[in-house]
């Protein structure tokens, strides 16, 4: 059986575009990353070898013949398969990522903003300007706990709307624009710009941003992942009430050079359905503002994170796929990496830069992955403590 124990950087020239593949064995499969669409494929190790050979320019007929002999199969069958691989990987159509970047050159950043907020994050002061209460509403609730009086600021973030699009400018540089129904990408870019300023790292220095909650025991951090409604934020609030630190909620950045989890200062969103659980631990929630996202039928309040050092960053000890199920007994077990990989990737932003993709694959392979199902909060907290102490 063939195994690739190291990354193989494969390059091919197709339509004058350099396409790079990374191959990384994980468990009993190979993960193939393609720079063409920043896409990850989980494939068999033998298939990875065939793609590798095709990329090196080895004739498909030779590859088919060898495969036919190896597997004792008719040459026609193996030739069809190898040709399919060639078509998919070596001679694909135009990339989806080759769309032209949007043109922002005719957009004029307004001079006047009726809504202004100032946020203090460690020693950094951000002035956030909005052209309406509606645009302010997209950002402010999560950062309200950082609000300070008007003062000298380090950076000015400007949000405005034109022609049914939301625009973001930092200082006077336009960062991008998004149609109204893609406002979550606007919020994501806003947060990305914030972490660049807080941690002094440009976008290419980040490995990825994960849709997760991150907690720490002050030495290491763990990521809690799961579909919306599985209890990521609630478990984060429970854990921070029991001695753990909140590193980030909903938007967890990981740096490429150190693969450490970096702090993100947004508040923890608490759904109405979690209030009864959290009110005894956080009496302040009873008086906090409530935001009613009517279409989503989601009513949330925001809970200030207990970590006030938003410059912190810690190594990641593992990934925990958490699930709250009413009346379920506690269960926590290690899961195989390919299963975890399939859950992780579609919900994450991963850097499209090849060096970062290589680091991501290595980093992921080094992590332990767990699935934790619970209904009893005390048991869940005790179980997470055990995970931090390697006592599963």
């Amino acid at each position, binding site marked *: 059986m063939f195994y690739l124990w190291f990354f193989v950087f494969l390059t091919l020239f197709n339509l004058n575009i350099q396409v790079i593949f990374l191959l990384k064995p994980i468990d009993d499969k190979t993960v193939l990353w393609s720079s063409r669409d920043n896409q990850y494929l989980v494939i068999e190790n033998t298939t990875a070898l065939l793609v590798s050979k095709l990329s090196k320019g080895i004739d498909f007929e030779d590859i088919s013949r060898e495969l036919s002999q190896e597997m004792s199969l008719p040459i026609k069958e193996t030739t069809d398969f190898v040709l399919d691989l060639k078509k998919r990987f070596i001679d694909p159509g135009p990339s989806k990522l080759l769309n032209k970047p949007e043109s922002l050159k005719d957009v004029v950043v307004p001079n006047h903003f009726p809504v202004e907020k100032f946020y203090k994050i460690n020693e950094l002061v951000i002035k956030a300007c909005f052209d309406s209460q509606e645009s302010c509403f997209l950002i402010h609730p999560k950062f309200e706990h950082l609000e300070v009086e008007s003062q000298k600021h380090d950076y000015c973030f400007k949000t405005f709307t034109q022609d049914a699009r939301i625009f973001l400018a930092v200082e006077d540089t336009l960062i991008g624009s998004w149609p109204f129904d893609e406002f979550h990408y606007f919020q994501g870019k806003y947060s990305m710009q914030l972490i660049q300023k807080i941690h002094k790292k440009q976008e290419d220095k980040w490995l990825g941003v994960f849709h997760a909650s991150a907690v720490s025991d002050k030495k290491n951090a763990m990521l809690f992942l799961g579909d919306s409604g599985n209890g990521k934020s609630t478990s984060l609030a429970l854990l921070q009430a029991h001695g753990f630190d909140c590193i980030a909620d909903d938007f967890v950045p990981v740096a490429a050079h150190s693969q450490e989890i970096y702090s993100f200062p947004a508040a923890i969103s608490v759904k109405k359905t979690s209030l009864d659980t959290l009110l005894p631990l956080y009496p302040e929630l009873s008086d906090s503002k*409530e935001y009613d996202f009517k279409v989503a039928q989601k009513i949330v309040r925001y809970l200030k994170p207990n970590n006030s050092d938003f410059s912190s960053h810690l190594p990641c000890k593992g990934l925990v796929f958490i699930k709250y199920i009413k009346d379920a007994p506690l269960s926590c077990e290690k899961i195989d990496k390919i299963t975890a*990989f399939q859950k992780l*990737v579609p919900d994450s932003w991963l850097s499209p830069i090849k060096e970062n993709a290589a680091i991501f694959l290595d980093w992921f392979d080094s992590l332990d992955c767990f699935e934790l199902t619970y209904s009893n909060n005390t048991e869940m907290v005790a179980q997470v403590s055990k995970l931090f102490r390697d006592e599963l």
Partner: protein
Amino acid sequence: MLENKETPSKDITRKDALKKMGSYAAFAALGTMIMLNPQKAQAQSGPPNPGFGGPNSNVRGVRIDRNKK
């Protein structure tokens, strides 16, 4: 009337048939691929469609300030 014809056994033995089936199963597995696309950009979770700024913008989120007297 149907005739009960026996399949000639001289072409392939049971052992060979099993071996061949195994080869085909392994070969079919080679074509199994799981395609995973990360998010196209950084995103934050939020209400799926707040109707922000649109013609029917009364569906956008509402802040309820319980502290206000």
